[in-house]
């Protein structure tokens, strides 16, 4: 992105030069790019979920909106959400209730800032990239907690507490799996991690392959996607923390969920699938490789939703603390031994 602008600046006269040098102009452009991506990519994943889920159940899914195979279904949904009445329960804590959707959504927007879509197609390359990514993605649950607490609804509160407990349990294997990758690459920068996989993607190494599985399971749990969707288990607690939300605020939570799918798929493909690196012999631009990998991981997440039934709350906690965390510690250990020797 920046290099593109710089290349333009080199050939064109001073006014463009001045603009590219202007910090605020570049900031505005970068912000627009990130927000544009955040508003479109989750829509694509959401539509894919409609279609994939439908076909896995022998249905067709949306077929009417927009004419061709219901491609505009989510646009129509968005218009519908805007039209709906914005209801705030009487007993709700109004400011917290209204702020919660933003707190849940903004971290996932911020996440896209550090994801590299090519050797020079990134917004910023932080030295603490992956640390930043994991730290920021953890903030989202505060939004869910705020929503649950401010709703003054028992189901919302149970859902929010489940979400918090789930995050605490699954953040640990997520961090440990990522730590193993950082040890492998010798850097925390997202770009550095991709470049370290130049000879061989991380997933080819057997111990990192285990790490990849752990990371994806933990990511599913962090996104509260099936089979780890106890915080929104509709047969038990209606819709968890989002029970009292309507209209645009509810849409923001949905956007956060699908944005989270894209963000965590992107992080997983950077950590394990070589990010924007392509397979030899297939000439595709770097960003297409990145999109393909994000798409494949997002498809997997949808596929899991179509296949697996929801776990029970205690099974979820038991699985995290007794299976995933020791296993991820083992991955860290093996990585350390292999890297040192």
């Amino acid at each position, binding site marked *: 992105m920046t290099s593109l602008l710089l290349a333009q600046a080199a050939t064109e006269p001073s006014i463009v030069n001045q603009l590219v040098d202007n910090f605020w102009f570049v900031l505005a452009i970068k912000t627009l790019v990130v927000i544009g991506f955040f508003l479109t990519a989750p829509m694509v994943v959401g539509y894919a979920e409609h279609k*994939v889920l*439908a*076909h*896995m*159940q*022998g*249905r*067709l899914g949306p*077929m009417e909106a927009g004419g061709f195979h219901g491609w505009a279904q989510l646009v129509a949904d968005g218009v519908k959400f805007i039209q709906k009445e914005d209801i705030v329960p009487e007993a709700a804590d109004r400011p917290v209730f209204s702020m919660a959707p933003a707190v849940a959504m903004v971290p996932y927007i911020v996440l896209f800032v550090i994801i590299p879509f090519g050797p020079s197609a990134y917004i910023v390359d932080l030295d603490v990239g992956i640390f930043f990514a994991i730290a920021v993605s953890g903030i989202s649950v505060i939004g869910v907690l705020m929503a649950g607490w401010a709703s003054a609804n028992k189901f919302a509160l149970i859902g929010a507490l489940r979400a918090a407990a789930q995050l605490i349990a699954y953040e640990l294997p997520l961090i440990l799996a990522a730590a193993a990758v950082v040890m492998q690459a010798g850097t925390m920068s997202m770009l550095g991690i991709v470049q370290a996989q130049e000879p061989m993607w991380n997933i080819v190494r057997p111990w990192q392959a285990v790490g990849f599985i752990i990371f994806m399971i933990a990511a599913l749990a962090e996104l509260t996607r099936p089979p780890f969707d106890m915080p929104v288990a509709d047969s038990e607690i209606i819709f968890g923390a989002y029970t009292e939300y309507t209209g645009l605020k509810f849409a923001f939570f949905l956007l956060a969920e699908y944005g989270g799918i894209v963000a965590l798929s992107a992080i997983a493909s950077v950590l394990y699938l070589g990010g924007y690196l392509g397979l030899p012999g297939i000439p595709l631009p770097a960003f297409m490789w990145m999109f393909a990998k994000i798409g494949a991981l997002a498809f997997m997440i949808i*596929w*899991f939703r*179509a*296949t*697996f039934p929801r776990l029970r709350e205690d099974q979820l906690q038991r699985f995290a603390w007794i299976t995933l965390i020791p296993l991820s510690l083992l991955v860290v250990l093996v990585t350390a031994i292999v890297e040192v020797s």
Partner: protein
Amino acid sequence: MAADETHAEVTPTRGETSTRTPVKSWTLPGVGLLKGLGVTMKHMLKPAVTQQYPDVKPNLPARTRGVIALREDNCTSCMLCVRSCPDWCIYIEAHKELAPPRRAGGAPRKVNKVDRFDIDYALCMYCGICVDVCPFDALFWSPEYEYSEPRIADLLHDKTKLGEWMETVPEAPALEAGAEKKKGK
């Protein structure tokens, strides 16, 4: 003592049930999960079973029971259908008319002429008892199903409409070999 007896009775049944359950052989953990993923993938690759109704007409069996049709000429207004209808959704009004005698020189016959034969499809529950009880083959099942109305009162259909549906009634299937022949005419 009695408790001991019941206990003695219960024990063998317990043993029986435990021997009946087969001993599961050990499989690799996660194999079931992969099988499940295979099932959903297989279904995704198969064509969907959905029929896009207004664009594609559903592929219904020939003798679908969609709506009840009336052959007015056969109706004698005997009221059997009206009285057997659980919902009381059939309305018949009739008057007597004189018809020419069957044989020359005989007295003119008296026949019942149907003035009104309405079925209220807002009430009808499609049990088909009227079709079954009709002794004169005046009522039939028609496979027609597209007769919804914007107003619920318009679902009261008269004998003209019921008669139109007769055209959609399929031919009765041939009797099975060796079946008892229908008596009478």
